């Protein structure tokens, strides 16, 4: 009992630490630095401690200090309760959804069974969608409660966009659920041990659909119309400052990580290395004894999983810095008239194949 408790706390601390302590601040740096390198620039490199700039890695730290010391401003006429609540509502789902994403398989070490997922729910995907759709409220409330025309327009756009893409995103996943026959993310992950059984090969259309919809859900370029700065200033968070402002950004960055996690789990073979099965790895680590070799295997899997996540983050950042943004009606058209039918056709064809096999 105590061992399980320790395990659970350790896993929560690990995921929470990785997300809040590593990804959330680092992604701000990554976004600046990667865009800079893509655009023939240098990027943030000025903050230093005793002359060491550490290629700009200190900027997240200085930014945090700066943001925390800023005035927290609530505009006159704003609904104070919802104005304060909105960033929290945005941030929480981004953090919670990671609870059901497995970052490793199941291992037996020293007679104790470790399952590397915080909550191994049998409705894992549903749980993700349920909480991801809660993030809409944060955005809409932020837009409405700010008492600002730009925020209001941003909130309206966000509501329309996020609700529309929720539908297509949900349907784009059905194919992969049909193929693997499970909603439990750990099972889906475990079934992708064979390289050729990875989701991306079984459901290439589903992969593109899901990635598109997920980026749209996350409101990043090319789908950033709720915060399109040249049109509606900063959209729903025009009136936010200080830590509340940065909470929206953290939510966005954490959602990037979450999307990467889901995509990795569903389509990119979860924690498995391509072409190398767990047995092979175990025999490779055989020199370390039965228990330690499993520990090594576990570490390899975790590293593999996070490497894949980092690749997906890189991909999303590249997309974000390459493309211009859509227009409001074009996004709606894309969501309802293109992505939705394609995902329905995808489900139909997948169903036929699954049935006939």
């Amino acid at each position, binding site marked *: 009992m105590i061992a399980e408790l320790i395990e659970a706390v350790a896993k929560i601390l690990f995921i929470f630490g990785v997300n809040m302590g590593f990804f959330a601040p680092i992604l701000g740096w990554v976004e600046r630095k*990667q865009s800079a*390198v*893509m*655009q*023939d*620039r*240098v990027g943030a490199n000025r903050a230093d401690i005793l002359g060491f700039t550490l290629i700009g890695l200190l900027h997240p730290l200085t930014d945090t200090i700066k943001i925390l010391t800023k005035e927290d401003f609530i505009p006159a006429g704003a609904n104070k309760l919802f104005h304060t609540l909105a960033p929290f509502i945005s941030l929480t789902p981004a953090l919670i959804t990671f609870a059901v994403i497995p970052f490793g398989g199941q291992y037996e070490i020293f007679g104790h069974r470790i399952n590397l997922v915080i909550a191994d729910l049998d409705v894992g995907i549903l749980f993700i969608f349920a909480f991801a759709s809660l993030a809409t409220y944060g955005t809409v409330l932020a837009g409405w409660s700010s008492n600002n025309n730009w925020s209001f327009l941003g909130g309206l756009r966000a509501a329309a966009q996020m609700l529309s893409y929720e539908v297509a995103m949900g349907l784009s996943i059905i194919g992969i659920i049909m193929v693997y026959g499970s909603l439990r993310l750990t099972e889906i992950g475990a079934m992708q041990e064979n390289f050729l059984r990875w989701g991306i090969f079984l459901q290439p259309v589903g992969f*593109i659909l899901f990635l598109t919809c997920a980026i749209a859900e996350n409101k990043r370029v090319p789908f950033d119309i709720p915060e399109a700065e040249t049109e509606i200033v900063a959209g729903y968070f025009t009136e936010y400052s200080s830590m509340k402002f940065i909470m929206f950004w953290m939510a966005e960055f954490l959602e990037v990580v979450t999307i990467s996690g889901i995509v990795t789990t569903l389509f990119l073979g979860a924690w498995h290395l391509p072409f190398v099965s767990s047995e092979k790895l175990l025999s490779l680590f055989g020199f370390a004894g039965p228990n330690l070799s499993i520990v090594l295997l576990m570490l390899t899997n975790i590293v593999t999983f996070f490497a894949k996540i980092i690749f997906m983050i890189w991909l999303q950042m*590249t*997309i974000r*810095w*390459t*493309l211009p943004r859509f227009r409001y009606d074009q996004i709606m058209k894309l969501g309802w008239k293109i992505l939705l039918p394609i995902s329905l056709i995808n489900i139909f064809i997948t169903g036929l194949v699954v049935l006939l096999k």
Partner: protein
Amino acid sequence: MNYELNYTIGSIPLDKLKPKKVRKNIELTLWERLYIPEIIRGMYITTRHFTINMIGFVFPPKGKKRKIFTVYYPEEKLTIPIAYRGRPVLVQREDGKEKCVACGLCERICPALAISIVGGERHRGNDMERYPVAYTLDMSRCVYCGLCEEVCPHEAIVMSDEYIGLAEYDRKNMIYPKEKLLVPVARLKDRIEYVRKIYGKNNYQIPSTNNQIITKSQ
């Protein structure tokens, strides 16, 4: 869009103009309609830049040619051309006095009214010479146009290559007195030479030698 042009354009008949139509195929092919190929092509370009620059960061190429365009300003400075117009300065003679004779041409031509001169006279050996008792240059007004340098008949004011440290927190500090403007002539030799060169006689064409027409219009 079929629009008949019912006017002539200048002296050239329209059929000889041969304008180039830039919009060739408006209709996208199905391949281009798919979004994905073009997105991948765009990402290929950005990734190419990314990769080249990453290699450049990890193994910095020797020499000046680098793909990253940024100049690390305080550590690195641009090599500015001789034509560059920086802070206007007064030329200081070898004996420490200013070369300016307070003729007032720069004061007159300055389009921003930044210069003000108070002239006076003093002894130089047995001769008398004019000199500026006060020469004030309001750097908050100066537009760095360089007209003062061009009209100066005595090579007394030139545009230096200084562009650092001109910003101030107080406007009062931006009014430069004579002492702050003086720069020894040795440091300004290149620029004086340059001004002499651009206003050299060989840059002027005598109209009578060429078939240049001067018509007084009245």
